[in-house]
């Protein structure tokens, strides 16, 4: 429980992780800071997004929380247990799901995969059989449950990843870029699954580059850059408190560039998008358009992607 009386599943304080570049037993390269005094609470039963450019420290945080990496300093607790000293109490309660095709045994079937991992999560055989069957059905793999995983499409493999991550009935699920390689339909189903998992009382920490996904599924998001937290808020709250430009969208070809407070305009497929400095300027643009007979017009708050780009900068390709 934190100081506000909220039960937290993830409690991180001043977490720092540094490493040296290079190979071998004792790398001698320059020291890199992956996490730099990061502090974060994730309340129980929250879907929490970690957003940031490549190398921001998202995966490093997930690795520490999943007990496969030690922090250099600071503390991290999962469900009240220290991830360094109490790994035996943390591990049974976490599920890990990452995107891509690795992390699976191609020569096993989905059912065999789940039975194997169920044993590693100490599920008795009878319970493992039932749980595997439930998950295969829930994730739409029942018909192909006895086919080799290597014959699956990428989306199906991702669903095996999900099922494997859920086999131990985890209270905290760490998703690291889970929709990598998913087609839009699979990604939509994934978002639905996230909502279901939250309804079951689980806590979900998800790293993603997909802003739409984060906006849709996350209760709150944390923007991380260079190992530090830039902001933690709900996607909407983050957008509103960001003080970013407001946008007005209208189906028109009118010229609005002369209106005070208009920063920029762009037209795509007959849709005019006007960037304004604040609410008052947006109001002025709306009034102008309505006065000129434009009927399809609305103000748009900044999207999470706008906030991300504003706070992180356009350095998504940088490492």
């Amino acid at each position, binding site marked *: 429980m934190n100081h506000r009386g909220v039960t937290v599943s993830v409690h991180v304080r001043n977490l720092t*992780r540094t*490493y040296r570049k290079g190979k071998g*037993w004792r*790398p001698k390269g320059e020291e890199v800071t992956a996490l730099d005094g990061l502090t974060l609470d994730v309340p129980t039963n929250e879907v929490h997004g970690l957003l940031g450019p490549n190398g921001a420290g998202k*995966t490093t945080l*997930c*690795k520490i929380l*999943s*007990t*496969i*990496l*030690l922090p250099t300093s600071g503390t991290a607790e999962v469900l009240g247990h220290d991830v360094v000293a109490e790994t*035996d109490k943390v*591990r*049974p309660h*976490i599920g*890990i799901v*990452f*995107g*891509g095709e*690795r*992390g*699976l*045994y191609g*020569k*096993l079937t989905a059912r*065999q995969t789940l*039975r*194997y*991992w*169920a*044993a*590693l*999560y*100490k599920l*008795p*055989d009878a319970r493992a059989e039932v749980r595997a069957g439930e998950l295969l059905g829930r994730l739409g793999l029942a018909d192909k449950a006895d086919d*080799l995983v290597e014959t699956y499409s990428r989306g199906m493999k991702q669903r095996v990843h999900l099922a*494997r991550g859920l086999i*131990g009935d985890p209270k905290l699920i760490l998703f*690291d*870029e889970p929709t*990598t390689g998913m087609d839009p339909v699979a990604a939509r189903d994934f978002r639905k699954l996230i909502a279901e998992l939250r309804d079951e009382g689980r806590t979900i920490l998800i790293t993603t580059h997909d802003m739409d996904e984060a906006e849709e599924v996350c209760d709150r998001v944390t923007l991380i850059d260079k190992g530090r937290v830039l902001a933690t808020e709900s996607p909407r709250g983050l957008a509103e408190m960001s003080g970013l430009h407001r946008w007005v969208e209208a189906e028109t070809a009118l010229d609005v560039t002369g209106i005070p407070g208009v920063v920029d305009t762009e037209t795509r497929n007959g849709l005019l998008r006007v960037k304004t400095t604040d609410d008052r300027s947006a109001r002025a643009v709306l009034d102008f358009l309505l006065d000129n007979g434009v009927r399809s017009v609305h103000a748009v708050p900044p999207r999470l992607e706008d906030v991300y780009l504003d706070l992180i900068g356009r350095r998504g390709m940088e490492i």
Partner: protein
Amino acid sequence: MRDQLRVLKHGLIASWTMYSAFQTWKSWTFMWLSRLLVQACFYALIGRMLGSQEQVDYLLVGNLVAIMAIDATVVILLAVGERQSGTLALMVAAPSTHLTVYLGRGLVNLGSGVAVSTTAFLVLPPLFDVRLPWPGAALVPLMVLVVGLSCYCYGTCVASFVLGFPSARWLALNMSYLVLMTFCGVNVPTSYWPDWLRAVTSVLPMTHGLTAIRAFIAEGPASTVLLNLVLELGVAAAWLAVAAVSFNRMVRRGRRDGTIEFSG
């Protein structure tokens, strides 16, 4: 304990499934088994070339047991396999004991090794006029299994080091096997080595087990056979204990230096 046995069982099932996906009974028989039989024949023929049936007996029996060790020490490669398939992080983050998971995954290779050696004991001795004490010789596969367990524990221990140095896996596998072949009484009696080296061989797998098998085939005293089998089991337990400590150390090291990667 029940959890550990379940992990072993499902590890065995998974590894059997994966093993049988690339190894059919035909490929096992005509490629793997036949290759190992030829190896044993090669050494027995050296004995024949030396013109001594005693040498033939010694070399053939030694190599019939040694070919099992090739399979049993293949477990060394599995650690790197987990890393390459991206499952190592998931394995480490799972609540089961790492060593148990790992032991379960390699049991198929141990079984293959014992099967190879047993088949070889049935097929090759008559070809080289090596006399086995039938029907008592039916117990030889059990003794080979004891030696196999000890080689497997030794291989698992080496595997834990390979976990930290994946690029050394083939070197480690070949060196581990060659050490057994060279020093543990397969082709050269351990009495040939200087005292200090003989002391080293007494803590290596195969030395005592092979002595027991040789004594059994020569219809030596039962006490010698049993004592050496117990010593072989002791060596197996010691290597298993070292493997457990070493596995934990390597996992701790991986957690410290960040070499256990999520794979996406």
